């Protein structure tokens, strides 16, 4: 009886008693969620256009952030370094298309998936070789990203909001909006969807796979860079960041692998769910449930909507 009370009643009583704490938790969840969304977005882009689950997305985040910080450390001015990093991500997209994807055209998806594993380890090795393995500090100030925080008085208490988090939310929203429009409204977007559906058919109507793949990998690279800057600003830039990419998995399950809005909503549900779960239900389990709570949420969703919240309906004629 006491346990049921602790699970179903007590947390809500606490929320009611201290609404400012609830708001603070919600805000932190929202921010974490936005960053999860950004990572998931990188996956969705590549999955949409090539049907490949790109295992290397996490390491692309680390690699782009390392490149940016590394270039700055070598005396390149911050914004010039940013431009150069974008250039590097473009070269990476070209190289991936030429040396990984092109030789594997028309191969089964699992083979392309395995190839992205290979890519992950190449990038880890390459990154360590050039930039070293030690954690670095993101150059937030030099990129004119705001620091400090706002403290807002509300609900009989205070809610603290980091400015960098607000900036992250704004940048992520802009990025998502422009990508959604790009996919839905342009000829290139239609070509991307066509390639995702059938390589052969896309080739036969004159869509160049090379061009499409470079485009999506480049877009995913830009998203990775934005993610890297934002995550790097919160912690450090190190290879440990790669682990957060695993958080994208429940987000994708929730949102659907092919939906950009799904990545956003999924990210926010996971982020908020995680923080709320940790804060109010965590003590019951001796805390630390943040690590696995996301997967529980995803599992529950899978039971009811296997295609995710926004995934394309699985249409099959039997």
């Amino acid at each position, binding site marked *: 009886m006491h346990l049921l009370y602790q699970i179903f009643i007590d947390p809500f009583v606490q929320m009611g008693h201290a609404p400012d704490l609830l708001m603070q938790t919600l805000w932190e969840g929202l921010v974490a969620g936005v960053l999860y969304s950004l990572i998931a977005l990188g996956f969705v882009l590549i999955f949409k256009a090539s049907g490949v689950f790109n295992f290397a997305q996490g390491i692309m985040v680390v690699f782009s952030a390392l490149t940016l910080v590394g270039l700055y450390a070598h005396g390149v001015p911050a914004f010039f370094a940013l431009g150069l990093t974008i250039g590097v991500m473009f070269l990476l997209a070209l190289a991936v298309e030429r040396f990984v994807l092109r030789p594997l055209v028309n191969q089964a998806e699992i083979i392309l998936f395995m190839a992205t594993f290979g890519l992950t380890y190449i990038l880890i090795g390459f990154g360590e070789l050039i930039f070293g393995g030690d954690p670095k500090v993101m150059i937030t100030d030099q990129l004119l990203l705001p620091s400090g925080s706002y403290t807002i008085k509300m609900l009989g208490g205070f809610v603290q909001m980091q400015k960098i988090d607000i900036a992250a939310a704004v940048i992520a929203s802009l990025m998502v909006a422009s990508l959604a*429009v*790009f996919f839905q*409204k*342009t*000829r*290139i977007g*239609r*070509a991307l*969807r*066509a390639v*995702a*559906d*059938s390589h*052969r*058919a*896309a*080739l*036969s*109507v*004159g*869509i*160049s796979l090379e061009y499409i793949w470079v485009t999506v990998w480049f877009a995913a690279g830009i998203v990775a860079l934005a993610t890297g800057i934002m995550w790097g600003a919160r912690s450090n830039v190190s290879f440990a960041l790669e682990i957060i990419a695993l958080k994208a998995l429940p987000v994708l399950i929730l949102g659907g692998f092919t939906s950009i809005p799904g990545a956003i909503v999924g990210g926010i549900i996971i982020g908020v769910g995680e923080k709320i779960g940790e804060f109010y239900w965590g003590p019951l389990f001796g805390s630390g449930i943040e690590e696995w709570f996301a997967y529980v949420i995803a599992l529950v969703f899978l039971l009811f909507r296997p295609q995710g919240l926004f995934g*394309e309906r699985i*249409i*099959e*004629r039997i």
Partner: protein
Amino acid sequence: MRAPGGPDVAVGDVLLSVENVSLTFGGVKAVSDVSFDIRKGEIRAIIGPNGAGKTSMLNIINGFYHPHLGRINFKGETRSKMRPHDAAYGGIARTFQNVALFRGMTVLDNIMAGRMLKMHKNFFWQLLRFGPATTEEVENRHRVEQIIDFLKIQEIRRTPVGRLPYGLQKRVELGRALAMEPDLLLLDEPMAGMNIEEKEDMSRFVLDVNDHYGTTIALIEHDMGVVMDLSDRVVVLDHGIKIADGTPDEVSADQGVIDAYLGVAH
């Protein structure tokens, strides 16, 4: 034996010729030393028993396979291999033996995808959905609606193609190829798996495309009745080798062809 009447397109110059083409997969010869040509405005059939190399031949023509020996001459330009993108750009459209459509997209979007190469406007205009891009979208949409009318698939235009029965999927695939306004249309078994009524419809469409648009067509077909009715000239392959080439009457009277189809005592 073409249907009499109608403004038959004059069969003219050579549009595409395949010269001494060979293709091997490992040790298997899919096509060996095959030469034939396709003339402007004709319906050219490629027939042969299973495994004769017919589909390989189509794949070579539109650049899915690259021949190991030989050349392809298309519109006066000779090359040893095509790339699919170049083939499409040059005006070769095709359908596939086992339907290759964009299953998640609607009929309309599938056929619009065929207009991809006809739309050139800068994508910044498209992002804004403004100015020249809008006009272009409208023009292309208009052409696509004409094709939808022509193929009589108005009522399913908003349906995702994955839900359609096979016969209709084949028709949508033809629509997508037509949307490219090709000079050469390659049809890989357009009537496979269809019932008699569907076959008759499809034959009608093929003839109409050839008559109205003057499109040159090369098709692979198993149904000999269909081949005899539709085609102007027939090339027969067997085990990757060309064994006959001529009008339907000539080919069906050829002893080598009869042997290939019926088997011969050794």
